């Protein structure tokens, strides 16, 4: 990639962040009012986008951003009231800005009129509201007629450090009209004392131009904060231009230094730290009582190393964590557009944007979340008429929140809509032959129907939702991330969907079990109970295999040795059973040979060098350097059933890549 492309890529990445930020700032603006930090932040965001866009020659983007920026600027100076109408215009403008950025990125042209309406709205906002105030303040400061100006320009060393060139400014001024330049050399030291990084020169210009003061000021736009600048209409008293607060705030922002790092590098780091932790564990295991007596110093240092390693591991994990806010930022627009398309009034509230989640999870979470919000807006919230008839406020609310609860991240999407119509769901399920019409089902079971593939209650398929690719996909995606989805709903009052995710994808609390000579890891959160069965508890049914009498019922007993075909696994009549929730709503007992302990395991991918293997989520390396395989509980019952029915799934596990290998052959 050439340098320019690289810069461009960075620019667009930055744009994404800024736009996400912008959205939330504008929403905050409505709550906190003008003059507050959100407005400055919004201004900064747009200003930065404008600057970058100018650099790469995205003129349309620059023009729009400039208009946008000036409206915000006037809002900041109190010339435009931040009323609901103004906010609506600004929100819409933010959407258009985001479209323009996307268009610039993809290189596709947008239709001419795409930004026209928003631009017009902005212009009107700027024009109409400014009219009364303009006369006493705006006009004299920014005159647009021809005139003579005296400009005193004294650069700070900062200006040079930011790679601005006074000469270019002089040239630009000269293009405006007749220019007389006087250089002030008074501060220039003797040559021997000259520090080339300092700014010693100052200039006075006298400019005769037709262009107007605004054009003159624009030349100094990017250096204003880094110089002493006075621009005076000749004859009038020089007015000092205050340094823009935005510019100084921008500088502060930059000081919170951050760098972009390739995720690959971080993964490598995480991996290596994981390895160190393992070696550390090995060393710790060897420090026994005897060593403590013979080498007390050594043992002490080893324990210190242990602490350091743990801190290191935590810090490295923290690198991968990003605030969930970037994910939420996409939602307001979605809700706005959906509400407009469906003629509903919907407000989106968000909370807990600062909650941090593993970067990989964030990426995978985007689509499911989008889907759930869409569902809430489409199925959950009623039309305004329906809401009023039900005695609810006309405006529906969708609440999106994130938070950390006991080592897990919980993301909730709640709406105050109509809730689940369980009768209708059941009717639909029967219609689609997903369940027999005689089925007796609890409320919870009916709720779970929405997670069935191909299920949708929408009366007609819209482009918003209702195509039946839905909740099952959401659930599967979340499960893939090691999370769960739960759904609660009360008819008439609304629904709440909760996604529970592990804090990090990289580490899993697990129980280490043995079968044959191999070690396996069962995710701890899924374990309900571990028990030593009695022979009388285990029975075998024709066609169903073994079942275990557990609490008041019978649950399938899946022997790990059997479903995994493990050489040398024990087959006792009273196996050790781990009772687990298999994430598909089943409680199953997994029979193993031995329980070896509990520990946090660093998850390693098997995919790197192998094709997927049924029943395995990944692997980890134990303290003794051995590999343990992490189980996917949701696949065990299938393996068990297939085995019973003689359909033995053989994994293509010679790590066969079907495509290229064939071509060579």
């Amino acid at each position: 990639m050439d340098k320019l492309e690289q810069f461009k890529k960075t620019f667009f990445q930055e744009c994404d962040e800024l736009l996400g930020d912008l959205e939330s700032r504008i929403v905050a603006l409505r709550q906190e009012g003008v003059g507050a930090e959100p407005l400055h932040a919004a201004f900064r965001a747009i200003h930065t986008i404008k600057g970058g866009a100018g650099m790469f020659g995205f003129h349309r983007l620059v023009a729009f951003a400039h208009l946008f920026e000036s409206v915000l600027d006037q809002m900041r100076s109190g010339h435009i009231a931040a009323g609901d109408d103004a906010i609506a215009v600004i929100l819409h403008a933010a959407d258009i800005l985001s479209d323009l950025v996307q268009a610039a990125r993809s290189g596709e042209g947008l239709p001419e009129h795409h930004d026209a309406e928003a631009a017009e709205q902005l212009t009107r906002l700027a024009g109409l509201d400014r009219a009364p105030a303009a006369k006493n303040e705006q006009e004299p400061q920014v005159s647009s007629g021809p005139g003579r100006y005296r400009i005193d320009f004294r650069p700070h060393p900062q200006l040079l450090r930011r790679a601005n060139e006074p000469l270019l400014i002089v040239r630009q001024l000269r293009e405006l009209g007749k220019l007389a330049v006087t250089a002030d050399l008074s501060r220039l030291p003797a040559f021997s004392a000259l520090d080339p990084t300092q700014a010693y020169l100052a200039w006075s210009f006298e400019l005769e131009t037709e262009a107007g003061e605004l054009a003159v000021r624009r030349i100094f736009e990017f250096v204003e904060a880094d110089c002493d600048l006075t621009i005076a209409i000749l004859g009038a008293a020089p007015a000092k231009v205050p340094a823009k607060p935005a510019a100084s705030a921008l500088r502060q922002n930059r000081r919170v230094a951050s760098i972009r790092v390739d995720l690959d590098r971080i993964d490598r780091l995480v991996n290596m730290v994981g390895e160190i932790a393992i070696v550390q564990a090995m060393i710790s295991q060897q420090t026994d009582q005897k060593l403590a007596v013979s080498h007390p110093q050594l043992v002490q240092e080893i324990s210190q190393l242990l602490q350091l390693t743990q801190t290191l591991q935590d810090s490295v994990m923290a690198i991968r964590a990003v605030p969930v806010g970037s994910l939420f930022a996409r939602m307001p627009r979605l809700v706005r557009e959906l509400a407009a398309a469906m003629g509903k009034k919907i407000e989106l509230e968000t909370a807990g944007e600062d909650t941090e989640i593993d970067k990989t999870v964030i990426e995978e979470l985007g689509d499911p979340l989008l889907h759930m919000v869409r569902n809430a807006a489409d199925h959950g919230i009623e039309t305004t008429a329906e809401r009023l008839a039900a005695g609810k406020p006309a405006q529906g609310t969708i609440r999106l929140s994130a938070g950390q609860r006991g080592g897990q991240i919980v993301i909730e999407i709640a709406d105050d809509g109509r809730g689940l119509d369980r009768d209708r769901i059941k009717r639909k399920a029967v219609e689609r032959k997903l369940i027999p019409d005689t089925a007796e089902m609890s409320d919870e079971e009916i709720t779970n129907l929405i997670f069935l593939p191909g299920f949708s209650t929408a009366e007609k398929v819209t482009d918003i939702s209702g195509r039946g690719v839905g909740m099952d996909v959401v659930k599967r995606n979340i499960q893939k991330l090691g999370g769960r989805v739960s759904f609660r709903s009360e008819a008439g009052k609304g629904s709440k969907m909760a996604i529970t995710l592990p804090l990090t994808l990289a580490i899993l609390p697990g129980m280490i079990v043995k079968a044959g000579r191999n070690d396996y890891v069962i995710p701890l959160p899924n374990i309900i109970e571990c028990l030593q069965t009695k022979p009388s508890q285990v029975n075998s049914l024709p066609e169903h295999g073994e079942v275990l009498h557990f609490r008041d019922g019978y649950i399938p007993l899946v022997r790990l040795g059997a479903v995994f075909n493990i050489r040398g696994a024990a087959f006792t009549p009273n196996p050790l059973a781990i009772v687990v929730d298999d994430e598909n709503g089943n409680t199953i007992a997994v029979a193993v040979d031995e329980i070896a302990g509990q520990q946090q395991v660093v998850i390693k991918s098997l995919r790197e060098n192998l094709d997927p293997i049924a029943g395995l989520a990944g692997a980890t390396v134990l303290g003794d350097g051995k590999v343990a395989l992490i189980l996917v509980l949701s696949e065990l019952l299938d393996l068990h059933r297939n085995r019973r029915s003689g359909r033995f799934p053989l994994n293509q596990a010679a790590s066969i890549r079907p495509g290229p290998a064939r071509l060579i052959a």
Partner: protein
Amino acid sequence: MNARSMLKEPAGGSAYSFEGAATGTFQCVAFTIGGHHYCIDIMSVREIRNWTGVTELPNTAEFMRGVINLRGIIVPIIDLRARFGQGLIEPTPSHVVVVVAIGDRLHGLLVDSVSDILTVKRSDIAPIPETAGQSQSPLLDGLITQGEQMLAVVALERLLDSGAEAIAQTMRTLDQAPHEEFSNTVTAA
């Protein structure tokens, strides 16, 4: 993490695709399995280590012995003897695992021992004679003569080819070792 990024950059996957082809020489690592001599392209070899045991994978082909931890990367181990249909190796600590890059994946090949590193003229690699019942996807690329010895050049890419053979073979193994299940069978009264 990508295995490539950590280990030395492979110069190419196939035996005939890199500089050796230009200079006309072929460098290979020679090893033995059950008294037979084989060799693989040296450019594919990442490291050679002793057998230390594996963790077995469920429901995989017989030749897939399991996985090992290679400095944080999980690497599958292929029993080359079993892959050639000659039964499993009974590995001891003196058996050797040759870690190779095939495409962008790492694999360990379990062999009896590594014997030599050879440089031969590319033109000295003889084709495999046509024999009856030749496989659709031959596992060998050619033959090299070294003094009295014949070495077969292993076609690495095709080691991972599934082929009906491997599956059929595994099905046989599964049939041979059915699990005895204890049962207090409930008979319908």
